[in-house]
């Protein structure tokens, strides 16, 4: 998979990991920020809810407080009868719905020297007003004793009152005085009771999300209200903290009892869920209200938001994954096809199918280039095959031409076994291609041997044909018994006709009189032959001032003569000998030829030829032979044998 779709995998990995990083960053930031916002909102809501509740309760409590305070003032300032007192109390309980009950309790013997205790008490029971006298031992009760001792109005701790209907209540007690001889003397305590079930009702009416709730604790931490009725009046916040070994709760309780306001994380006593707890004191009573906001419920929205965002993110991620894989595959599929096709082409299958690429993109361009390459290769190979075939045909034709050329040159030595006036040997070492060198020899009559050596300009078939023409012309003219110069003059005329290719041939032609050793010769621009005298001297034959045949019409060639003595040798060669190159590009040169010739003066014609050839080859070594190497060597033996033979 990785090997096959490397690009697809790499793109997917890169893009998706980038996107994951970006998405995660956005998500985390979004989560933290919205959480922060929600938390701030919750705190603000908690604050206002708590404050509103505190105000509500406190407002009620203040209203309740005012009643006994006013009553106490009234009792101090005005005289009253027992009946009036009872009427007052009754009116108070009747007219204040928040007040569960009210009493005026006197100090021992303060109401009447006859009665130790006097404490008329009205309270509500099942919606009806009930009246009773609080029994004689009320002096030790908290609601009486604390206000009396502190000499100031005070809320009692909530308590369970069996006498007044068996409910949980809290009492606000106000001490009242009487002026006796100008002195304020404590006379009793006015009380107003509130039912805690009423407080419970207020608090449970608070709607705090699903499972949130509020509770109230008293000055010493006792639960005044709580959704769990078992806690109310039975437990304090500290006893619960103790039971749960919850230092945090103990700290919260301490702060609440101190009258602090605060906000803290908390674990619900009812649901066990993680919550925030907002607490605030009720200034009038010294109690403290706590409101619990369940964390998970408040965070429901953000949790839902997170789930949605993550779902969208994951869906987007997989969608992107699919898109990227699709894109990458749409790119790599043709590439794989191309790669496969390239492999096939590389193995020589030029009919390999190049896959079609539908999109007009870079890959399509590549495919197009591939297709072009394939077509070009195909064409090129076809051309090459054709060219090679043509070349092979030409080469084979050249080979045939070469064979023909070689076949028309006399190669049987000795050529005239019955003639002992001279020895003759010739060799031609053609270059790779068909060359333009020629030599020939033939008797004009019994006593005149015509011999020639030539070099046609250029190489190949044209040179070869030109050579054949020259040879034929010479043979034809020679038969007419012409002087060498005249002969060449005529041949030149013929060669110049229609010589559009501007071919020419350098040629040396000699006629040896085998009786006398005289050679009549004419040179048409050829390398002058050497005469190797039997005595050892080496002479370059004198020139006749001729130009190569075929160069220009109207040239006139002169003849000269040289006489060979018996044993003398005439050495004819083409420039293939002197202009043979070695690997360094140096020429064999005339000098080297002269030197070599002087070492073989006593050899036979064959020896001389072979020796020079060997020397040339040794010189050239591995260098490619660029031109034909041709030599014709004749040794004059002397006419005596001829005359004796006759």
């Amino acid at each position, binding site marked *: 998979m990785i090997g096959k779709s490397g690009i697809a995998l790499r793109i997917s990995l890169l893009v998706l990991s980038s996107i994951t990083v970006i998405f995660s960053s956005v998500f985390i930031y979004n989560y933290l920020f919205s959480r922060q916002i929600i938390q701030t909102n919750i705190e603000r809501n908690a604050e206002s809810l708590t404050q509103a509740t505190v105000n509500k309760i406190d407002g009620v409590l203040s209203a309740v407080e005012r009643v006994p305070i006013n009553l106490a003032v009234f009792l101090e300032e005005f005289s009253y009868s027992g009946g009036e007192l009872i009427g007052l109390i009754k009116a108070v309980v009747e007219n204040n719905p928040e007040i569960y009950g009210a009493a005026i309790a006197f100090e021992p013997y303060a109401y009447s020297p006859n009665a130790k205790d006097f404490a008329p008490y009205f309270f509500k029971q099942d919606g009806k007003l009930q009246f009773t006298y609080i029994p004689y031992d009320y002096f030790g009760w908290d609601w009486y004793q604390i206000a009396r001792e502190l000499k100031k109005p005070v809320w009692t701790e909530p308590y369970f009152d069996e006498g007044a209907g068996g409910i949980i209540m809290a009492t606000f007690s106000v001490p009242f005085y009487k002026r006796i001889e100008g002195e304020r003397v404590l006379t009793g305590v006015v009380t107003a009771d509130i039912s805690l079930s009423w407080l419970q009702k207020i608090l449970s009416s608070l709607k705090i999300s699903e499972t949130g709730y509020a509770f109230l604790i008293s000055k010493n931490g006792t639960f005044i209200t709580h959704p769990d009725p078992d806690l109310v009046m039975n437990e304090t916040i500290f006893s619960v903290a103790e039971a749960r070994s919850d230092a945090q709760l103990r700290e919260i309780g301490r702060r609440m009892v101190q009258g602090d306001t605060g906000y803290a994380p908390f674990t619900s006593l009812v649901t066990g869920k993680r919550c925030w707890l907002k607490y605030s004191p009720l200034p009038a009573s010294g109690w403290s209200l706590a409101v619990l906001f369940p964390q998970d419920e408040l965070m429901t929205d953000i949790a839902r938001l997170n789930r949605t965002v993550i779902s969208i993110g994951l869906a987007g991620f997989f969608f992107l994954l699919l898109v990227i894989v699709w894109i990458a595959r749409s790119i790599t599929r043709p590439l794989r096809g191309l790669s496969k096709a390239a492999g096939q082409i590389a193995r020589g299958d030029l009919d390999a199918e190049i896959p079609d690429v539908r999109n007009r993109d870079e890959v399509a361009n590549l495919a197009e280039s591939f297709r072009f390459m394939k077509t070009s290769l195909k064409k090129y190979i076809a051309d090459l095959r054709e060219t090679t075939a043509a070349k092979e045909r030409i080469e084979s034709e050249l080979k045939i031409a070469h064979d023909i050329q070689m076949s028309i040159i006399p190669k049987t030595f000795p050529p005239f076994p019955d003639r002992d006036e001279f020895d003759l040997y010739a060799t031609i070492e053609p270059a790779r291609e068909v060359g333009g060198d020629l030599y020939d020899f033939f008797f004009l009559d019994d006593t005149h041997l015509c011999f020639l050596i030539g*070099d046609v300009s250029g190489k190949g078939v044209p040179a070869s044909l030109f050579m054949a023409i020259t040879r034929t012309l010479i043979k034809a003219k020679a038969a007419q018994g012409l002087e060498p110069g005249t002969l060449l003059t005529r041949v030149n005329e013929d060669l110049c006709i229609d010589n559009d290719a501007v071919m020419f041939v350098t040629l040396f032609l000699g006629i040896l009189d085998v009786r006398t050793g005289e050679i009549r010769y004419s040179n*048409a621009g*050829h390398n002058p032959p050497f005469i190797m005298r039997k005595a050892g001297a080496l002479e370059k034959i004198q020139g006749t001032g001729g130009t190569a045949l075929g160069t220009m019409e109207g040239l006139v060639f002169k003849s000269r003569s040289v006489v060979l003595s018996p044993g003398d040798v005439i050495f004819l060669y083409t420039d293939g000998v002197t202009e043979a190159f070695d690997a360094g*590009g140096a020429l064999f040169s005339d000098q080297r030829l002269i030197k070599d010739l002087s070492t073989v003066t006593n050899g036979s014609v064959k020896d001389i030829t072979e020796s020079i050839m060997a020397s040339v080859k040794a010189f050239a070594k591995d260098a490619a032979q660029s031109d034909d190497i041709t030599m014709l060597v004749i040794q004059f033996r002397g006419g005596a044998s001829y005359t004796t033979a006759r």
Partner: protein
Amino acid sequence: MEIQKKKEDNIMVIAVSGRLDAVTSPELEKELLSIIAEGNKSLVLDFAKLDYISSAGLRVVLAGAKKIKQQQGILRLACLKGVVKEVFEVSGFDSIIPCFDTADSAFKAGS
């Protein structure tokens, strides 16, 4: 082989250096024919730096001389030396194509 051309006063001087053989002569032939086809009437082949000339090279020189002659122009040779000079002498080409010792003298002969 390298070919350098320089035209002055309607005389085209072509300096050929290196080897002029069967392999390189077609290049010179092509060059000469195109120069002649351009209408140049006076050519000087400067062989001062020519190391070697084969019969194929001679043929190209001769062909050039003939071609320009047909157009009433002339080809001159300058600075033949060494082996090259020998080849021209032996083949008798020096007698049918005017040769000069220096490019300058060939140039002056043309102007």
